[in-house]
């Protein structure tokens, strides 16, 4: 390998940085611009479907952290009725093993990612809080049918042209941006 001298190496490096002055910035201005997350995102929190759940507790057994607390009693039609289904998402590591383990598709990972709380107590989610709602939508992780209905992820690989993935909206230097949305 031949080494260049006389400042040629420095000049080449400076040329590379200069060239980058004219390339589009890759910054995503987060609160205003939001990228579309993966369809299989293991996002914050779980979504629990009470009608599908049989109370078999496979999810609780599969959890490495022992996070899922489930209590049942035997109902009228010789089935389990779930009394308590509680997840401490503060201890959850979002590995998705419970969702994969569920034989009845009664559990799904959430798609949201802006679910910070002020108190640790608020991270312990009860049976009512875990159900499907406007802010708690399921992601397609281990659930192919949900996956097919979600929009495609935006990829940095396609930052300059659109093929396959969602195009990212890159803002130029001159475009006005305010504080608000």
């Amino acid at each position, binding site marked *: 390998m031949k*080494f260049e*001298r*006389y*400042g040629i190496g*420095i000049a080449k*490096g*400076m040329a*590379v*940085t*200069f060239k*980058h*002055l004219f*390339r*589009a*910035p*890759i*910054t995503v*201005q987060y609160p205003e611009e939001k990228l579309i997350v993966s369809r299989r995102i293991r996002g914050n929190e779980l979504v629990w479907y009470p009608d599908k759940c049989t109370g078999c507790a496979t999810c609780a057994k599969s959890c490495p952290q022992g996070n899922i607390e489930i209590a049942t009693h035997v109902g009228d039609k010789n089935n389990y009725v779930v009394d308590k289904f509680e997840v401490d998402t503060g201890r959850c590591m979002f590995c998705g093993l419970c969702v994969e383990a569920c034989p009845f598709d009664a559990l799904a990972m959430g798609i949201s990612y802006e679910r910070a709380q002020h108190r640790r107590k608020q991270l312990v989610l009860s049976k009512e809080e875990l159900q499907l709602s406007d802010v708690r939508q399921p992601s397609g992780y281990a659930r192919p049918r949900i996956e097919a209905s979600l929009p495609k992820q935006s990829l940095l690989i396609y930052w300059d042209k659109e093929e396959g993935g969602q195009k990212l909206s890159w*803002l130029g*230097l001159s475009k*006005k*941006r305010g*504080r608000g949305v």
Partner: protein
Amino acid sequence: MTLLEQFQLWLGSIWPGWAAYIVPAIVGIVVVLGFVLTMVIVFIWYERRLLGRFQVRLGPNRLGPEGIFQPIATAVKILLKEDIVPTKSDKVIHWLAPVIVFVPVLMIFAVVPFGERAILTDLNVGVVYVVAISSISAVGIYMAGWASNNKYGLISALRAVAQMVSYELPVVLAILGVVLMAGSLSMTQIVASQKIPFLLLQPLGFVIFFLGTVAEMNRSPFDLLEADSEIVAGYHIEYSGMKFAMFYLGEYGHALAYSCIIATLFLSGWQGPLLPPIIWLVIKVMAVFFVIVWMRSTLPRLRVDQLMAFAWKGLLPMAIINLFIVAAEVLWLSEITPWLMVAVNFVFAGVLVLLWSKLFTLGGGRVEV
């Protein structure tokens, strides 16, 4: 006669003598200070945005159009911070150090010509004044590093002394070439004598002066005093609040001052067609600072012994040779057309740089312990 002296003369005809002596001085100081502080804020914004664009990101763009007010928000944030003084520090020196770093920077602007007669004081030894005043900052940096009683600060302080003293020599010798060619030590005279910018007449002197000043204002690749990956923040590691703001202002003020000096000595200062002189000066200063930021965004840092070797083995001999060449040219070749001189000097500069890069060794430097 400068504008200020003219103002003083006019004021003397209507006001008593002592008032005519003090008022113009205050007016001049306020105007220059206003220029410096505005430009420092512009510089902070300019560097952040430029660095952002070099690094394929945006840089601050939230506050005001294109984020121009971000430095003001930063200043307010810094001022609101708690002023922490370490228990074991030398309190008086710790308090005094930021002042000693910041004040000389402002004093440099006394001799920077902003226009044909727009200069605070047209000292006949302006260049000597600049050299003398600008080295005081090194004392402040040493005091800061020593007084904060921090080991990183101490390393930084010792590096500071070595670096500042070493790079003072090539810088002064490079200025001497300019002085010889202009035939004067006064800044206004040097600007007036630049029919062709001295950048073309003295390319080697410019390179030496530029690198030396970059080292003196602790910017990459010579930012060993702050070297955030090695000694964290160096001399200002124990400073916060207003005192840190003084260092911060001092750093950018230094960059502004040296950009002004480079523009004045080598880029024909405020001279330029069509636009008013002050605009030309600002354009040239911005161009110089652009190159400094560009270098900062690209180059890795030198090691301390390589830094010293570069000053003593590289820049200093080249500066001496350059001085001799310029002296010879002024003595014997002053009659020939300047453009021929430009060509001759570029050839000399190229040959010397090639010669010295042959001697430049790569790597090594282990010490047996």
